[in-house]
């Protein structure tokens, strides 16, 4: 196990899913046993995150705990099983493992049909989630990226609400369009790099050293091939329309994972692929993407404000918060990118937990309409306190986690060399006020005031299992808000490396043309001259 920590982490959930199946088929385990067993099994990867964090060296450059073995060998078809973590991926691995455990806790009562299959799909999904973040081979990355869709599709389609089929199909078609183009881009990039390897780091290194000489037009195509997949996932306006449907129709566990981890893959992908590999195209389109990010931030906040359904409100607020992520990444300052990563983690925890909160309410009242509630602070004090903390973290109240992320993004954008950087900052900052408005108004309508519905008078407060899910999350948003450094210190090194690759090198002679591609190199040199 010593040298294979990441493999264990990735495939422990798959093993867990098989164990669950055996427990049912061979031992005839009942539903309650399956739930407990699944919870215990989800603690294995979470537990493995402890040695992961302990062994991670924040000062080292490049990936750590690397495992590499030849996998598919065929002339010109060298796929490696190549995994490792660096500052970009480390925390997302931890986040995935954490949120799956939380999801199982949150589904204890809500899932009463096909309990075995539910947990099997959830654990298989976890393998996909962790796999995406640790894969360092494009082929492997793509496999995890796609494999993850299947369990998610089943989670939405089988255990979702009324319009679940529509939502599941929309989710998968949107995502597949993006990933189909990414597949074409991967194949193309593979040939342009010489047709020998799918190794992301080797290709990145070539790009950094100027050996991956892409013609400007090719670079633009490739940039969009990757970016479209990631922007759909994030999701950035106008590719966001799948998100409200999927979030609202998914069961609580599905929403938690969607908001908590799946959206983050978009941001992670931009940092891992687009910025280091296609610096010129990124430079060219950064303004456009920032503008779309601002649109997402404001649009998401405005639409949230008018939602009567609590779950839909939180779904649209995700569009708004994830806009900050794209803004921070496209600002391409260290602070902006650090902020983007931090914002993703913070959003993963606070929004994930808010979906659990919605689940708690809808389990009790079988409705999520805000107008049905009011004055819940009296019958449910602990619930209200937790809801309050998590909602405030989501609207970026200082000392809570959301503030650190959004503040870093705003400062990072302000200090960036983007055109109109200040205007972007001002607009994004305005949206923070909007988000405070809709969240506080929601808190007021749900928690405070007179109790308007008789049914609400005797609602039971959160029970032990729900506390177990929600209190750690509330503690985490406070800790992350007060002490962000343990997280930032570990992402710092990787972010500065992305920045080094992403910001164009000014010194022309450093570029070493690839002797194999003289034509492309010449075109690239012309491109540089024209700039």
């Amino acid at each position, binding site marked *: 196990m010593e040298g294979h920590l990441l493999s264990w982490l990735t495939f422990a959930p798959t093993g867990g899913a098989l164990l669950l199946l055996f427990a049912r088929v061979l031992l005839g385990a009942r539903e309650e046993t399956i739930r407990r067993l699944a919870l215990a099994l989800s603690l294995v990867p979470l537990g493995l995150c402890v040695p992961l964090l302990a062994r991670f060296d924040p000062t080292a450059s490049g990936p750590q705990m690397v495992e590499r073995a030849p996998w598919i060998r065929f002339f*010109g078809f060298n796929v490696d099983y190549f995994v490792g973590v660096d500052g970009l991926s480390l925390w997302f691995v931890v986040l995935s493992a954490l949120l799956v455990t939380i999801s199982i806790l949150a589904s204890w009562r809500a899932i009463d049909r096909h309990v075995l299959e539910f947990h099997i799909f959830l654990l298989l999904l976890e393998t996909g989630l962790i796999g995406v973040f640790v894969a360092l081979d494009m082929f492997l990355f793509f496999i995890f990226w796609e494999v993850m869709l299947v369990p998610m599709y089943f989670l939405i389609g089988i255990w979702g609400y009324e319009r679940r089929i529509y939502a599941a*199909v929309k989710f998968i078609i949107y995502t*597949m*369009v993006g990933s*189909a183009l990414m597949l*074409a881009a991967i194949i193309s990039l593979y*040939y342009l790099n010489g047709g020998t390897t799918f190794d992301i780091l080797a290709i990145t290194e070539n790009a950094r050293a100027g050996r991956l000489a892409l013609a400007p037009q090719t670079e633009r195509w490739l940039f969009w091939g990757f970016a479209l997949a990631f922007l759909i996932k994030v999701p950035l306006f106008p590719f966001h329309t799948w998100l409200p449907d999927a979030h609202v129709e998914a069961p609580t566990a599905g929403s938690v994972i969607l908001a908590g981890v799946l959206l983050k893959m978009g941001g992670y992908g931009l940092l891992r692929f687009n910025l280091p590999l296609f610096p010129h195209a990124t430079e060219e389109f950064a303004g456009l993407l920032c503008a779309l990010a601002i649109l997402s931030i404001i649009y998401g906040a405005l639409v949230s404000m008018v939602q009567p359904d609590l779950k839909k409100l939180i779904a649209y607020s995700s569009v708004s918060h994830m806009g900050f992520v794209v803004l921070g990444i496209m600002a391409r300052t260290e602070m902006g990118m650090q902020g983007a990563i931090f914002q993703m983690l913070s959003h993963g925890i606070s929004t994930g937990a808010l979906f659990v909160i919605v689940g708690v309410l809808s389990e009790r009242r079988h409705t999520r309409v805000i107008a049905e509630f009011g004055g819940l602070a009296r019958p449910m004090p602990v619930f209200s306190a937790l809801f309050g903390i998590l909602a405030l973290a989501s609207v970026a109240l200082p000392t809570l986690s959301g503030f650190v992320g959004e503040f870093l993004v705003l400062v990072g954008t302000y200090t960036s060399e983007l055109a109109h950087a200040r205007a972007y900052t001002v607009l994004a900052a305005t949206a923070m006020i909007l988000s405070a408005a809709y969240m506080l108004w929601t808190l007021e309508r749900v928690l405070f005031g007179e109790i308007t519905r008789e049914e609400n008078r005797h609602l039971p407060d959160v029970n032990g299992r729900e506390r177990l899910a929600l209190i750690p999350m509330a503690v985490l948003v406070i800790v992350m808000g007060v002490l962000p450094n343990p997280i930032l210190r570990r992402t710092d090194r990787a972010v500065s490396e992305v920045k080094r690759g992403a910001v164009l090198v000014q010194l022309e002679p450093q570029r070493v043309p690839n002797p194999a591609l003289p034509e492309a190199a010449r075109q690239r040199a012309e491109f540089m001259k024209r700039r």
Partner: protein
Amino acid sequence: MESLGITYRAIGPELVLTVTGVLVMLLEAFSPGKKVRDGVLAAAGVVLAGVAALILWDEGPVTAFSRMVIVDGFRVFFTLVILLGTLLTIFVSWSFLDEERIPPGEYFALLLFGAVGMTLLVAGNDLVMLFLALETITIATYVLAGYRREDLRSTESALKYFLLGAFSSAFLLYGIALIYGATRTTNLGEIARIVSGPLGRAEIVLLMAGGAMLLIGFGFKVATVPFHVWTPDVYEGAPTPVTAFLSTAPKAAGFAAFLRVFSLTFAPLGIESAADHLASHWVSAVTAMSILSMTFGNFIAIAQTNIKRMLAYSSIAHAGYVLIGVLARDWAAVAFYMLVYTLMNLGCFAIVALWARRGDERVLIADYAGLGFRQPLLSFPLAIFLVSLAGFPGTAGFVAKFWLFKSAWGAGFPELVLIGVLNTVVSVYYYLYVVIVMFFREPKEEVPRVPPSRAFVATMVVALVGVFYLGLLPTRVFAFLNAAQNLLAIGAR
């Protein structure tokens, strides 16, 4: 004067299949109705033919029987794919034969004779040989398609298949005649040698016309748009196990012949030659066929309510993907694709056949409602095969598509790759629609229990292991194909 080259080893697999077929038929004549005996004998014959094919593995490209037959890795691999398809079809037919009270001997014999035609088609090194093999296939398959004699749909299917098949054979024959006119030979090796040099004006015209006729003929046989119209009706009307057979083994054989004639014989050489002249035309024609097949197949499949018709349109779409490989002239990619397609499509049809029961009662997609958790032994494998057909990673369908697309990109067809990947997105919609119906919808009436037979379980095990093995650890099969490709490269021309 070269010798006639009569080496029986060179047609070992075909001999074994023929002898087994005749034996099964004779046994049926003397003591009829023994399904297990006939079936086991037929399966053993197929396995033995596989062994006979594997023996030929290392024999580099050599020809036999006056250069009518060729022995190379290409042939051996395609032969194995066809035999796998035949073997699985024997399993799939197991309970169907009892339900329909069909004399098992003649059914198995026809399957075997069909397989003989297919393996000969793959082995053919002469246009006349190809034509003979094609006719052998079609006679066997016409009868198979019309096996449910009292059913109107089955009869219609057989008639349609027969008429359009005869029509396309005429095209092929005409094409062969014209090419003979241009090159004065029907031997593919000779033709390749002649077209690699310049030809006179008249010969070029004849060659063009002949090539076009051959393209139409092969287009019919492998069911590509615009020569696909027979496919949905035939697939729907034929008994389900026969549909399973028709959609896999003859298709693999057809693509092998297509590859052998177009990608290997009429391959452009990059010099001033008749082949290059011809190639500039056939490449654009096949490109159009490929794009049309993918797009039409996928979009029309969306609208289908009958699962057999849906799979028929899906097979048209897959033929479009495979044509990308024909264009890239990467026969190994095509061979691998056909292997994978045989596994996943036969897996699908095995379930469809089991669920359809006597007289094809339940073949609407709506009939699958509620199958999900009530019949997990049917629904989960079907979901896996459909996901593999859609090309999700982790399954063989992905590796096969990836290889095709990668070769096509390397060979300079990026636009085909883009159209191909976007088409897979379309296909996801209808493949997963079946999954929706099975898992997300409640049934209208009680879902009956369908006990799976042992032959069905065997099919599932082979197909599932194959789909995951080729999807996750394809290196060994890749190496096998790679060696064959190298041998072919050394020996060709």
